[in-house]
């Protein structure tokens, strides 16, 4: 008697296992799944919910970090991956992926100096590198004074604050330092986490921000949206054209518009230290990764439709969250690439 009940139970369980995946797969047709970078998560989530209301198509995005996103898209467990740092063309080719920039943001140096307002203090690219190398140690250093005539600077020690966790923000920031300082490039280099020659590490943007707020005479770097929302004392930077620029969506867009996208193979383009008088030197784009050959062209088409909608109808929502939309010039290039590169298994283009 008891055995019978047990057997029946087991059978029921087995039936569940057999039926459920089927139901799940059917459901998936109307859903796009992605995983990766945490930096663009708020705007992707916002776009997804707006798009769902409009079309009934769901977009599930897990912000597990760029590293995880790249691994998952390579393993084809998600329809697209997202990364804050572009993959090198060689790596793209090796794994049969294409990438394109989706949204931009900037990295902003912030300081804690008594009596100094946001945008009041000005630094050159070379000074930023030397401060982070631990070579410029006092705020009243002659070189800082030379950039800021008329500003009274304290004789405080500079405390450098950096990210402790591996992050795309660090990747963009160290890429910038490597470009503007040969010594940084040689001694430290650029990656999501590096061996910092000086300073202390905070976890996440909020960790860096709270250290900077706490320690008088400190300098750190955070994402633009974060600096803006928390009213941190940001720094004006002297870009490669010698002009002092403030971090805002105009200067980020200038960096993106002046970048030479057409000659960037696989959209491998880092927006740091770009030409243009108005260009903010520490700008970065967040990228989407997809397979060139799509086994399920209908899902891929749905994903591309969603991205197209984001490019065209999404900018307002992005700006509200203090992200910077891609310039239309770049969007046209991206959509051309979709047409040429993304194919289904029999070689027909998926887009449009």
């Amino acid at each position, binding site marked *: 008697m008891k055995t019978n009940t047990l057997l029946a139970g087991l059978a029921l369980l087995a039936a569940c296992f057999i039926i459920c995946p089927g139901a799940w797969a059917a459901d998936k047709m109307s859903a796009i799944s992605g995983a990766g970078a945490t930096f663009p998560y708020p705007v992707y989530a916002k776009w997804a919910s707006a798009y769902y209301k409009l079309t009934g198509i769901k977009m599930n995005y897990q912000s*597990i*970090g*760029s*590293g*995880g996103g*790249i691994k998952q898209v390579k393993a084809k467990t998600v329809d697209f991956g997202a990364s804050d740092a572009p993959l090198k063309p060689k790596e793209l080719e090796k794994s049969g992926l294409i990438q394109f920039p989706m949204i931009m943001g900037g990295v902003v140096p912030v300081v804690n100096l008594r009596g100094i307002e946001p945008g009041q203090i000005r630094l050159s690219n070379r000074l930023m590198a030397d401060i982070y190398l631990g070579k410029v140690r006092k705020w009243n250093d002659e070189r800082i004074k030379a950039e800021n005539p008329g500003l009274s600077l304290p004789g405080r*020690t500079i*405390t450098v604050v950096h990210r*402790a*966790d*591996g*992050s795309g923000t660090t990747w963009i920031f160290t890429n910038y330092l490597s470009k503007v300082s040969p010594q940084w490039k040689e001694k*430290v*280099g*650029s*990656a*999501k*986490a*590096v*061996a*910092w020659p000086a*300073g*202390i*590490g*905070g*976890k996440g943007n909020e*960790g860096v921000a*709270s*250290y900077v707020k*706490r*320690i008088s005479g400190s300098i750190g770097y955070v994402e633009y949206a974060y600096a803006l929302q928390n009213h941190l004392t940001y720094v004006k930077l002297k870009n490669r054209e010698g002009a002092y620029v403030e971090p805002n969506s105009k200067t980020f867009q200038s960096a993106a518009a002046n970048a030479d996208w057409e000659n960037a193979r696989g959209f491998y383009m880092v927006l740091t230290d770009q030409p243009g008088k108005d260009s903010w030197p520490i700008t970065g784009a967040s990228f989407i990764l997809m397979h060139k050959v799509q086994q399920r062209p209908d899902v891929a088409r749905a994903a591309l439709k969603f991205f197209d909608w984001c490019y065209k109808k999404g900018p307002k929502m992005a700006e509200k969250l203090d992200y910077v939309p891609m310039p239309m010039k770049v969007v046209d290039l991206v959509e051309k690439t979709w047409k040429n590169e993304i194919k289904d298994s029999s070689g027909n283009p998926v887009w449009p």
Partner: protein
Amino acid sequence: MNKQQNKEHAPGKGHGNRGNMLDVLFTSAARICALLVLLIIIAIMASLFMGAWPALRKFGLSFLTSAEWNPVTEQFGALVAIYGTIVTSIIAMVIGVPVSFGIAIFITELCPAWLKRPVSTAIELLAAIPSIIYGMWGLFVFAPFFGDYIEPWISDHLGELPFIGPFFSGPPLGIGVLTAGIILGIMVIPFMAAVFRDLFEVVPPVLKESAYGIGATTWEVIRNIVLPYTKTGVVGGIMLGLGRALGETMAVTFVIGNADRLETSLLMPGNTISSSLANQFTEAVGEIYTSSLIALGLILFLITFIVLSFAKFFLLRLTLKEGAKT
């Protein structure tokens, strides 16, 4: 007792069989559970070792002795993290053990009856606070206070002394190895205090009262009656606290400063094994980088293992000595 049981089971052979069967079932279930723990530990050890193998093969023993941690050039060494883990745990123990003892002695020996309940409950509540709360409290409340008022004093007075001076000099950032150690100390206190209290309470009152009767002071009673009676448990309680201090992640990450540099001064930032793992694992790319992080995990596992074995060994020697004495 036995006879009675036999009598109870006697009527009806089937019933007896059933009882036997249940007994066998129960014993084997219990045995499987115990073996499962062993199996899981071996499996964890094996998978850690397999994951860590590429890094261990590449760096060899220098992984333990190198202080370099450079994801760009893929040169990894665990020395900074090992040092930070051990030093923060030592600081935590130096603070935690005496305070927990004090709390437990107060509750069991000195406390008026009406205060016993509230103090005990407060300690249990402290133990239930999630570690991230300690971390945030450490970062937003304790570190500023410590950096503004305590650390300048430490660096002015202790920083000048010979020998220990270098450990206590440096800029008063409020964030660093010492802060992390103190936060850890506060975190382990409720655990150890609760264990010590329970232990001290099971000491037979007859023993204590006889000691008081022959004129022993409270301290003498603790020293000569309570501690010898409970020593196994006390060492176990300390190990429990030490285990928590060694493995604590979130609270430490918030206040230690996360710098992969070896500094003599306790006021300077450092890093621990678990905090390195928490910070870097999600964004680690490349085989050697990931593998080095797993190797760090393996080292933490080994440190905990060594500490526990040492404690067992220590206890064994203690009991052996006792046997020789009597």
